């Protein structure tokens, strides 16, 4: 009997201790990522960085680029949007309150969220910054719009400003140069939100002709652990008719799609997607993909095409057979949340035409991944080479000074980066 006990303990230690061979993230960047076998842990790795203020330090950029602090002392800035007159909107959402834990595990997950996100209580509002001379130092800033509910996406079409709260898209009248909106918005359509609202950020963009809006609606779980009924209308990109608010799922199987953007030369919709957790430090690669109308990208049943996820029941072989692989892997758990195509001229020619991606950074692998802004070169409307680091230094050893989220290009061609842990907006120029 005693020997049985010793054997059981030894087995327990062995199960906990062993992990898969680490994969070099470079092998998981590009159209054909290396996919290791699924590894389910007894104790999944959690590696959290301690928050540390920027102080006088700044992110790091390659030679030939310059980084400036565009705005500081913000409250959980998650998105930036540039209006046609050059005014910069900064969205400060308070994430929705977590529901009471459905499982004991959620006590740990909620603690982890607090450790890795902005501890500043955010006001659910949008600020406006005006930097008319383009020197990267705004002449003034002001409260632009408040009384929102976990806002994230913003897009202007003509004189209509759309804001995607976590639970609905609202339209506000806007005239060029306006610095404050006080009239109540008109609801265009509801979005899936409560209860739970696990992935709550709703990205928003408009079609080039302005007739349609596109909203990213993330899944309500990691991998259906809140039940399939909680996923209705989620893990998809919605197409919304701007005139009527009529909507449908334009593409599905996209676990947490963010950074919706039209590629300016081909007018094709692109998105960055956060893939599933807890099947290994190198599964599943997050990705950048064009969004094909009516396409199914796998979640929850499969990943990267037809790789079946054994955690999802009942199985749907019919849907797995339909699943298409995304275009370009960014490596695992980098958590891409921001995407912007560079169509200006301020930055060196090397950065023209490709995509910048804001990687919020990993929490569930021993070696950090992400925590930077990368550049993916494009040719003929498709990724054409290896992703390269552009803005780094968000991590300092085991300390975390910031986490990049939303991106935008300002009217002078500078790259703006919302940093929700550093509570700042950074600006990168030549």
């Amino acid at each position, binding site marked *: 009997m005693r020997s049985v006990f010793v054997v059981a303990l030894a087995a*327990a230690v062995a199960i906990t201790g062993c992990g898969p061979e680490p994969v070099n993230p470079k092998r998981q960047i590009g159209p054909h990522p290396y996919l290791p076998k699924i590894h389910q842990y007894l104790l999944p790795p959690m590696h959290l960085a301690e928050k540390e203020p920027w102080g006088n330090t700044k992110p790091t950029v390659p030679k030939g680029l310059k980084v400036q602090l565009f705005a500081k002392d913000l409250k959980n800035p998650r998105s930036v949007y540039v209006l046609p007159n050059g005014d910069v909107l900064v969205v400060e959402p308070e994430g929705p309150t977590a529901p009471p834990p459905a*499982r004991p595990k959620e006590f740990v997950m909620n603690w982890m969220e607090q450790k890795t996100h902005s501890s500043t209580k955010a006001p659910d509002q949008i600020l406006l910054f005006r930097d008319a001379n383009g020197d990267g130092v705004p002449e003034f800033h002001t409260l632009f719009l408040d009384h929102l509910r976990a806002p994230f996406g913003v897009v202007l079409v003509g004189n209509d400003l759309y804001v995607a709260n976590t639970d609905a898209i609202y339209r506000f009248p806007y005239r060029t140069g306006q610095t404050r909106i006080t009239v109540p918005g008109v609801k265009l359509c509801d979005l899936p939100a409560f209860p739970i609202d696990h992935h709550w950020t709703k990205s928003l963009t408009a079609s080039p002709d302005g007739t349609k809006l596109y909203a990213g609606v993330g899944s309500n779980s990691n991998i*259906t652990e*809140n039940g399939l009924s909680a996923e209705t209308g989620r893990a998809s990109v919605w197409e919304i008719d701007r005139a009527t608010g009529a909507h449908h799922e334009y593409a599905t199987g996209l676990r947490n799609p963010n950074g919706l953007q039209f590629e300016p030369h081909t007018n094709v919709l692109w998105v960055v997607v956060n893939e599933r957790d807890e099947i290994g430090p190198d599964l599943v690669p997050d990705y950048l993909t064009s969004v094909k109308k009516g396409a199914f990208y796998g979640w929850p049943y499969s990943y990267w095409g037809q790789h079946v996820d054994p*955690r*999802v029941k009942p199985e749907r072989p019919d849907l797995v057979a339909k699943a298409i692989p995304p275009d370009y892997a960014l490596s695992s758990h980098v958590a891409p949340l921001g995407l912007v195509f560079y169509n200006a001229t301020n930055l060196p020619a090397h950065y023209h035409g490709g995509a910048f991606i804001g990687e919020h950074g990993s929490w569930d692998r021993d070696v950090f991944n992400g925590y930077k802004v990368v550049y993916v070169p494009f040719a003929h409307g498709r990724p054409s080479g290896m992703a390269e680091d552009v803005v780094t230094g968000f991590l300092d050893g085991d300390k975390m000074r910031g986490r990049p989220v939303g991106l935008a290009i300002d009217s002078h061609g500078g790259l703006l980066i919302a940093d929700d842990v550093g509570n700042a907006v950074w600006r990168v120029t030549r």
Partner: protein
Amino acid sequence: MPGGNPRSTARIGYHPIHVMLVPIPIVCFVGTLLSDIAYAETANMQWANMSVWLLTFGILIAILAVIAGLIDFLNEPRIRDLSAAWIHAVGNVLVLVLSIINAFIHSRDAYTSVVPTGLILSAIVVAILLVTGWNGWTMVYKHHVAVSSEIDQ
């Protein structure tokens, strides 16, 4: 060596704490097996959630029960002389260890939080509980462990 029946050290009055606590983890771990079976049959997440709550509360009380039981076991040589006590003690520590592992398995997301590893562990735990329970009853009903006698009073 004092006379009378083998005594419980961790007790309130003449009521051994261990015996008062053990029904809770036993019911929780049997319930875990039942809700695991229900989940395996239906893939309805409410059963998997019920399992992991039962496991968690079962483990919390089992830890207290094991502590009380070990205090009794270590402080009374007449208990340690019983082979039934050894089987009961080692088996129930194993139940606790396996249930802790099982709670981590049950903390995975969706189907593989239960099938197959979680379900197998839940069944092994209930099988061990049958053996340790039988030996526990042997300790009390045959050897009168912790039963107060006139000498005690």
